[in-house]
């Protein structure tokens, strides 16, 4: 069995309007740039995007934003793309801001089959408004709901054709979590190898989480994003 697809267009056949899409990356680092680029070419609308940032102005998810394909953004740091503020002011996009650790843990919980969890992060702040509060062993916590997606678009360094994944340096970030938390998980990688070539001790995402693999055609270099 191989999960390898020849093109990003083929990989994205399963994405449809109105989907909630988890998109890996910390800014452009570890973002699935090839799949995002393909998504900008696809005729979809009303997407909910779960990602730490909504790209940068005119880059990555920033393109999708400017195309008006995003209905809602869920993330921790939209400040890195000034267009997000403009769209929000104009009432063209909904935003849900979460502390970065809460964003990560909510995705982890979603992937682990949990409904949510209690956290101390945010208690007593504006981001706790409207959230259930509960005292546990004398400490106040707030309830945070788990996050799941219809599709996850993620970036890894290497995959074998079964879908086992290893990552590269700080490009790992949200990717392994998102790999667990969507119905369909599509990954782009620098290199696809045969089963047996990855050391099982070093596999970070086991293959049962992964549905589709493509080779990355857009990569981040010192000179910015380039096509390979």
């Amino acid at each position, binding site marked *: 069995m191989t999960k390898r697809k020849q093109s990003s267009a083929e990989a994205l056949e399963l994405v449809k309007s109105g989907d909630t899409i988890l998109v890996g990356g*910390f*800014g452009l*680092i*570890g973002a699935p740039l090839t799949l995002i680029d393909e998504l900008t070419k696809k005729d979809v609308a009303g997407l909910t995007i779960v990602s*730490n940032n909504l790209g940068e102005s005119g880059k990555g998810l920033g393109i999708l934003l400017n195309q008006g394909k995003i209905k809602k953004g869920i993330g*921790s*740091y*939209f*400040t*890195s793309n000034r267009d*997000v*503020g403009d769209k*929000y*002011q104009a009432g063209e996009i909904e*935003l849900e*801001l*979460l*502390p*970065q*650790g*809460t*964003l*990560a*843990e909510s*995705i*982890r919980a979603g992937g682990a089959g949990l409904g949510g969890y209690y*956290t*101390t*992060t*945010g*208690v*007593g*702040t*504006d*981001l706790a408004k409207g959230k259930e509060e509960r005292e546990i062993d004398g400490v106040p916590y707030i309830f945070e709901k788990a996050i799941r997606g219809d599709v996850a678009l993620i970036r890894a360094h290497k995959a074998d054709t079964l879908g086992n994944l290893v*990552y*590269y*340096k*700080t*490009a*790992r*970030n*949200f*990717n*392994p*979590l998102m790999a667990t938390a969507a119905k369909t998980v599509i990954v782009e990688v620098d290199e696809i190898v045969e089963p047996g070539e990855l050391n099982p001790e070093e596999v*970070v995402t086991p293959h049962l989480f992964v549905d589709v693999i493509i080779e990355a055609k857009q990569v*981040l*270099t*010192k000179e910015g994003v380039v096509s390979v």
Partner: protein
Amino acid sequence: MTTMTKQEMQHMIAQRVAKELKGPMSVNLGIGIPTLVAEYMEDDDIYLHTENGLLGVTDVEEEDIDPNLVNAGKLPVGEAVGAAYFNSSESFAMIRGGHVDAAILGALQVDEHGVIANWAVPGKNIMGVGGAMDLLVGAKKVYVTMTHTSKDGSPKLLKECTYPITSTRSVDMIFTELAVFEVTEDKQLRLVELMPGATIEEVREKTEAAFIE
């Protein structure tokens, strides 16, 4: 009165807070002045944590820059000997779970009980929080570095924060170009040190919050 450039002030603050760090320990550095602290650490047994997934941050030479190896400010960094990578959830388990010994953060305002505001400004869209709230609830010690006053000269150490607070938790120490304060067990500010060139009169004049001298 002090007549330093902003950059000199920032370096002086970073150098002073670095003296508090004694290994072995893990430390998370925020963006801005905290990033400069790495330049002044004297203890080899300090491991820098960055919330985007690396324990063992070090500086990097221009020719060794890797676009996929950055800190939380998305600046290029290096990988120290003994470094480890991990995902965002593990990274925040380290922070929220109380496994990171110290966090050094910037702040927009600090109140007289050591509660800080550093993530949002009223009247502007609230667009980013990042890891600030997690660090406040989880790091064993929180050290704040900031210039003593805002650009317009108004105090940042206030009776009450007028910006949205980051956490109800009080920080442990505050470092400015004029003074070092600690937060006492009963949540009061205590002046512990005047920085070189600063006078008590200047600190009094530029501080709205009550503090123990």
